[in-house]
């Protein structure tokens, strides 16, 4: 039971990219929230994600051992080198789309992070996770709260957030589908088995959807590719915007 340095690095990169790309997406809500209070709330969520990305990518750089920093990894990799789930790179859509995506992802991320906090294979990751667990507990609660309000709200808000769920659902399979990166991590106890993770996710998502009077879509064909660097057509634009300053002014500081 062992994991190569390369596999360990790939796994941490995958974790860091999830947080980084979602943080970049959420950051775009700054100044565009439906109300001032929620505008600040979304920005807080974005900052939590960026904070997690910084620590995770720094840890990834340490494990890789090539001297790459969090900034090198965030700003100087090409699209094909990013290993995030497709779900987090999808466009924000409307407020309901963003909160539904956040519910689906942060509930998953929370349970994954709880496991990281308790494992002993990677102690620095456990320390990162201990903090992130508290943040993600708030993320999933806040998202669940809004999904319930929208789903169980007016006829229009119900229909719109139901269609958000339908559009996003085919991107949830990738969270649990077997993948070599996850398999290696699971071997050394870094990850719980996918069925365990999915059961924990189901146990939280189902009651929220029920309270929101939403219908859980049937599991059909699922998109995948993020963990192999094969992204949606939206990813290039996201990276172009996120990386443009760093690439225009290499090594600049303030």
């Amino acid at each position, binding site marked *: 039971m062992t994991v190569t340095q390369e596999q360990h690095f790939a796994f941490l990169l995958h974790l860091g990219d999830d947080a980084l790309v979602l943080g970049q997406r959420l950051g775009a809500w700054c100044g*565009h*929230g*439906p*109300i*001032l*209070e*929620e*505008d*600040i*709330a979304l920005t*807080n969520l974005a900052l939590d994600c960026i904070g997690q990305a910084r620590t995770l990518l720094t840890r990834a750089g340490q494990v890789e051992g090539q001297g790459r920093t969090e900034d090198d990894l965030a700003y100087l990799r090409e699209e094909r080198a990013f290993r995030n789930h497709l779900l987090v790179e999808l466009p924000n859509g409307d407020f309901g789309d963003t909160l539904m995506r956040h519910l689906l992802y942060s509930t998953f991320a929370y349970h994954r992070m709880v496991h990281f906090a308790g494992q002993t294979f990677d102690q620095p990751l456990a320390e990162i996770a201990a903090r992130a667990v508290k943040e993600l507990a*708030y993320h999933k609660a*806040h998202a669940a*709260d809004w999904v319930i*309000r929208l789903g169980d709200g007016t006829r229009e808000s119900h229909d719109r957030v139901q269609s958000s769920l339908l559009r996003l659902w085919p991107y949830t399979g990738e969270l649990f589908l077997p993948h070599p990166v996850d398999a290696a991590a699971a071997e050394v106890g870094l990850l719980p088995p996918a069925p365990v993770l999915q059961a924990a996710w189901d146990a939280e998502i189902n009651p929220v959807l029920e309270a929101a009077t939403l219908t859980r879509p049937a599991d059909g064909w699922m998109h995948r590719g993020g963990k192999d660097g094969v992204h949606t057509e939206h990813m290039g634009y996201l990276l172009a915007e996120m990386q443009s300053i760093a690439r225009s002014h290499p090594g600049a500081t303030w």
Partner: protein
Amino acid sequence: MATQPTDWPLWEIFVRSRQGLGHRHVGSLHAADAAMAIQNARDVYTRRQEGVSIWVVPAEQIVASAPGDKEALFDPSDDKIYRHPTFYVLPDAVKHM
């Protein structure tokens, strides 16, 4: 902002700081109900480690003294300085006076 939350009630927010003994009024915000008011207060008023506890109160539930009653309410205490604890030595054991 795309729309104004004109139909959401106003809430007054009170936060107890780490060192503070009581909740202090920090501001107000709009929210549809108490649960949302707590979440919004957390996001708006405790971003910089300001608090360990939050109270939210519907603004309409607060009864304020009338500005016109100011003289009758507060001026009579102007000439009663003996009400201040300045005429005797406080024992060291008494804290938070």
